[in-house]
């Protein structure tokens, strides 16, 4: 992957998130959308489910067009995956956002909270890789 291709893909991501803000007034924070979509007493579940459907369809498209861009068998054990998933979920809910909500939308509107969130989760991620090992 060349660096300009990564920037172009990023711009596509930002443009997509931007379109949701411009036309719908919504923040494309993926953890937030998923969390609200599964809340038992959720209101406005409809657009969230339609957004998530789009992500899944996009994933199916990626799997067909660039099959080697998808990891089919994960290097982590099932136990480690469960812990990772739980931490990602709890943390994103507490912090009100993840790499998309804070990382792209929050930093993109120069929110101090989001800049702090991104700095913090990047350092914590580096610590986890350092202590637990990465791709094994």
């Amino acid at each position, binding site marked *: *992957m060349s660096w300009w291709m990564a*920037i172009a893909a*990023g711009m596509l*991501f*930002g*443009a997509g998130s*931007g379109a*949701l*803000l411009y*036309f719908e007034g*919504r923040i494309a924070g993926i*953890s937030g959308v*998923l*969390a609200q979509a*599964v809340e038992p007493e959720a209101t406005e579940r409809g*657009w969230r489910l*339609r*957004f*998530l*459907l*789009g*992500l899944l369809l*996009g*994933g199916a*498209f*990626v799997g067909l*067009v*660039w099959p080697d861009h*998808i*990891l*089919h068998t*994960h290097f*982590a054990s099932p136990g*480690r*995956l469960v812990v*990772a*998933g739980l931490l*990602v*979920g709890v*943390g*994103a*809910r*507490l912090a*009100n956002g993840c790499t*998309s909500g804070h990382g*792209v939308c929050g930093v*993109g*509107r120069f*929110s101090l*909270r989001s800049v*702090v*969130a*991104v700095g*913090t*989760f990047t350092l*914590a991620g580096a610590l*986890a*890789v*350092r202590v637990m090992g*990465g791709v094994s």
Partner: protein
Amino acid sequence: MSLRPWLPTLVGFVLAVALGLSRLTRPEVIVGWLDPSAWDPTVLFVMIGAVSSFALVHRLARARRPNVCPTPTKKALDLRLVGGSVIFGLGWGLGGVCPGPALTSLGAGASWTPLFVASMVVGLWLGAPERWRAWGLAKEGKSRV
């Protein structure tokens, strides 16, 4: 029939394609970003592209659609933000997966994704502040947690 309700679907599709195209769906690319000894700058380049194009649209939206564009009011740097980000980051480094790539890989049928996404959904549910208050782990009203 109006196609307008399907705009979020189109956006979701575009986001998944962007993540897949840039290979952020590969956990080793994420781990590479977090590992100074085998540094992979892909995440940085994707972030630069995404933040710059979103910032541009955000400016436009604020100027032209002030009634539509939300303005988040929360400003405080509290324990919940920092603690949550630490927890999120540890999970991110442990699996090399964040929510967007997890759902993209689920759509692509990767075998590990049902387990990861189910755990993540449980985590999202457990992390909700209203649940913490109901369990007495956080105070009612203005809470520090």
